[in-house]
């Protein structure tokens, strides 16, 4: 496995900029997720790494080699496609064998590596089946085995879980992660599913409109989003627009004063994650907003509560089941609570550009 470096990568289709100025170092054995809404440039970037798309500008390094102009079939990347792209006219074993044959590996060694790859994904007993005789999850495993059998320098996954049903998706997700860590694979994983990216990755790059918004570990991105787009894309947040009024004090447009840690002069907006907000019948903590419940969504382990305060400010609150149902007061539309959060739970934003 090898380190991958993207240097000022740019791709234009005509006048449309798909990716602009993308620089990132992916460490040896690291899993980086490219996350963003459709059309953000994540797949284009992945395809540039694989060599299917030539960058308009910038360079791609795999290991110490500049591969920017190296054709696809000489790049030695192992890619798993969204719809698996197994060869329908070949058995499972032949699918896995294909890349090895291209590398002119002799029959005995080929057989050893086919077995190894299929064992790895627990598909050995299906080696003589054809792709159409397999379920979606099994096809996915074969696609992974096929990509890994060639011992690629980089493992590339293009939305590999999007065609699987919910339960299988979790299973395969965990398998991919376990495999990636066991083999120390340098991996790029493209997804539009934030939960998937959070659960899988060492680091994630959030993209929007062809630009990287923020790169970091899942927790740092979730806890300290750099801008409103990242905050909004990675889960929910209650936003309060306004400005700094004094040290550690933020005055919202609606006229509420909030105690906020880490305040800066240029603060334009404050965000609070829903699970940081608690509900009570008397004011608690640094900030307490008197608010009416608008709607309640019961999610099993958690309860989503949408509230609106007296100034018309929307607040969303995410309570664990135990906490929501231990209190004497039932949470239902129309009930009135204090929504409480700490100054340290606030994230300060200096721009209002959410889209």
């Amino acid at each position, binding site marked *: 496995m090898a380190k991958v470096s993207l240097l000022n990568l740019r791709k234009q289709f005509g006048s449309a900029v798909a990716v602009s100025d993308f620089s990132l170092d992916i460490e040896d054995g690291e899993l980086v997720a490219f996350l963003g809404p459709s059309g953000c440039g994540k797949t284009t970037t992945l395809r540039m790494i*694989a060599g*299917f798309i030539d960058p308009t500008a910038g360079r791609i390094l795999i290991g110490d080699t500049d591969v920017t102009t190296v*054709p*696809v*079939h*000489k790049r*030695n*990347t*192992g*890619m798993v*496609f*969204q*719809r698996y*792209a*197994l*060869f*329908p*006219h*070949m*058995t499972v074993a032949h699918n896995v064998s*294909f*890349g090895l044959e*291209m*590398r002119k590996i002799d029959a005995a060694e080929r057989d050893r590596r086919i077995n190894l790859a299929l064992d790895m994904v627990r598909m050995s007993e299906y080696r003589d089946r*054809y792709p*159409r005789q397999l379920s979606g999850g099994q096809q996915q495993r074969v696609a992974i085995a*096929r*990509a890994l059998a*060639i011992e690629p320098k980089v493992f590339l996954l293009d939305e590999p879980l999007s065609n699987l049903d919910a339960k299988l998706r979790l299973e395969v997700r965990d398998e991919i992660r376990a495999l990636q860590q066991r083999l120390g694979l340098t991996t790029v994983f493209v997804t539009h599913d934030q939960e998937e990216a959070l659960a899988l990755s060492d680091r994630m790059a959030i993209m929007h409109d062809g630009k990287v918004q923020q790169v970091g570990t899942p927790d740092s991105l979730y806890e300290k989003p750099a801008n409103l787009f990242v905050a909004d894309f990675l889960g929910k947040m209650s936003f309060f627009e306004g400005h700094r009024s004094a040290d550690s004090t933020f005055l919202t447009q609606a006229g509420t004063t909030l105690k906020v840690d880490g305040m800066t002069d240029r603060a334009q907006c404050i965000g609070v994650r829903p699970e940081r907000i608690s509900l009570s019948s008397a004011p608690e903590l640094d900030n307490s907003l008197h608010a009416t419940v608008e709607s309640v969504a019961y999610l099993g382990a958690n309860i989503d509560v949408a509230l609106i305060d007296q100034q018309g400010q929307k607040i969303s609150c995410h309570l664990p089941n135990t906490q929501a149902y231990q209190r004497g007061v039932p949470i239902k539309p129309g009930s009135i609570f204090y929504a409480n959060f700490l100054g340290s739970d606030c994230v300060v934003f200096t721009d209002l550009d959410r889209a």
Partner: protein
Amino acid sequence: MSQGVTASGSSRLGMSLAFPASIVVLLIIMVPILLMFRYSFNEFDPRTMMKEGFTLQNYINFFTDSYYRKVFTDTLSVAAICTLLALVMGFPVAYFLAKTQTRFKSILIILLVFPLMVGNVVRAAGWMVILGNAGAVNALLIWLGVIAEPLKLLYTPLAVVIGTTAVVLPFMILTLQSVLEGIDFAVEEAARNLGANQFTTFFRVILPIAAPGVAAGTMLVFILCMNAYATPVLLGGSGITMMAPSLYGQIAKASNWPFGSSMALILVVATMTIALTSSWLIHRRYVKTMTS
């Protein structure tokens, strides 16, 4: 439950409605062939034309006469060459049509279908204008100074091959395209990603997956070529004789129905045998593996 009854009821109604028409179609197709089959064992009598009998003499005459053997092998050769040319020229076009994202795709397909709206005779006449001694090709070559005397292009096997290929090419392209359309071209990228160059990708991935289309297109086009009539007559002239014009001559001009019938049956059997065998071979090689 009631829906099931309605469905099977309506399908039974459909079958009973289709039955009379099917019988008529079957008669229209089968009776002439069966009659011909019977006639081919009759004897030819110059006075009464045809004498009832049961002899293999017509078949023996056909295969022992070097003239007819040549007609037969020329027909096979022309059909094989035209089919191969149509496949080689048609595949890239069909491939392009299947993969293209252009919004002009429907216009391109209409352009492809357009020649089918013009009869073979009219198109052959067009080729005569192009290939004749005073035709476009010779005029251009003389004007360029490449040749001094016009080349004999018309009334040659070459003219028949060109004309016939032009006739069957749209059929080949449309058949191939309909199959290529169904291919998920991500397999091409997968093959490239695994280390295959474009050449290997084509021969080891795309072609095998397209095999059902190749089999269908080859079979259809080969049958059309074997039975070509107008194009060989108009472009081949006396330079080459093919089966369909030759057997027509036997029946209509020489009034030798038994011999003409035996030629027709030889043509049908040869066409069917070769078309079905080659298609079966392609299926065995590529298709069976995908559907088993």
